[in-house]
């Protein structure tokens, strides 16, 4: 099973990025807050994050630091979420 905590943390980071991209206009999200949310994901124990999930999260963090567009960061985080699910599906098969 994919870690629920990991999925929740990644979804939180995605929601923050989408909030910037969609311009809800009701909160000020800074790149620092997005980076913090991604770091929260990376702080999860090793057994909860497969290496490829960790790699996508690292790429997302780099994208935030490099000032890449919100959609690029979101896409990378969705990839992490997908990899997390895929990892869970493989674990269930084994």
């Amino acid at each position: 099973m994919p870690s629920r905590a990991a999925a929740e943390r990644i979804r939180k980071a995605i929601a923050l990025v989408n909030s910037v991209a969609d311009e809800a206009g009701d909160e000020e999200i800074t790149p620092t807050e997005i980076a913090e949310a991604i770091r929260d994901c990376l702080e999860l124990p090793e057994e909860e994050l497969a290496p490829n999930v960790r790699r996508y999260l690292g790429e997302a963090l780099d994208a935030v630091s490099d000032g890449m567009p919100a959609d690029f960061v979101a896409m990378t985080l969705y990839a992490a979420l997908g990899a997390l699910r895929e990892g869970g599906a493989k674990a269930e098969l084994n």
Partner: protein
Amino acid sequence: MKSAEGRGRTLDEAVDVALIELKESRRNVDVKILSETAEETIVEVSVIDPNAPDHSIPAPANGKGEIARGLVETLLKHMGIRAQVSVRTGSEPITLDISGRDLGALIGWRGETLRALQSVTNVMVGRHLDEGERIIVDVERYRQRREHTVREIAMRAARQVKMTGDAITLDAMQPFERRAIHLALEGDPDVTSSSIGEEPDRRVVVGPRKPAAE
């Protein structure tokens, strides 16, 4: 666009009257409240018809919308999804409509897959877009229907706030839904909307507008 006026004691009654006249179901219409008193509500109900001829300017054949449409069509083909992609005419920002059968998987849990598809599309088309310009992707008008639904929720909440004077906290919503609520209520002189909480549990609070301090 086909539309009808409806009158009733409540919002639901007024909408139903207009729907009967239009012979349409609620999911295919947009509702605008013209006036609302304790005794009577008057609404204008307009039919949303994706195939209706539009008087607005269509997207140019080789414009950004067409580039995005081609890319999404190819992407869906690689995903093994059979669907039609079209550029919504007269839409600002550029909106791609995906239609077909059994596209639920493309929408995903609470629209998550649809949102991911939109992010990918914007990354792919990014270099053709101006600064700050974005492409909106909609599947079977899911996003549009959600916006209509939340606007109706906003109107109901506003009515209740006016009657009771108490603020109402709505369910957690996505940014585009919160935005739709803020926009729906921004012109109302009696109520105000704000958001509380943190993503992804951020909620809109609809409350009475306090008179400006003298």
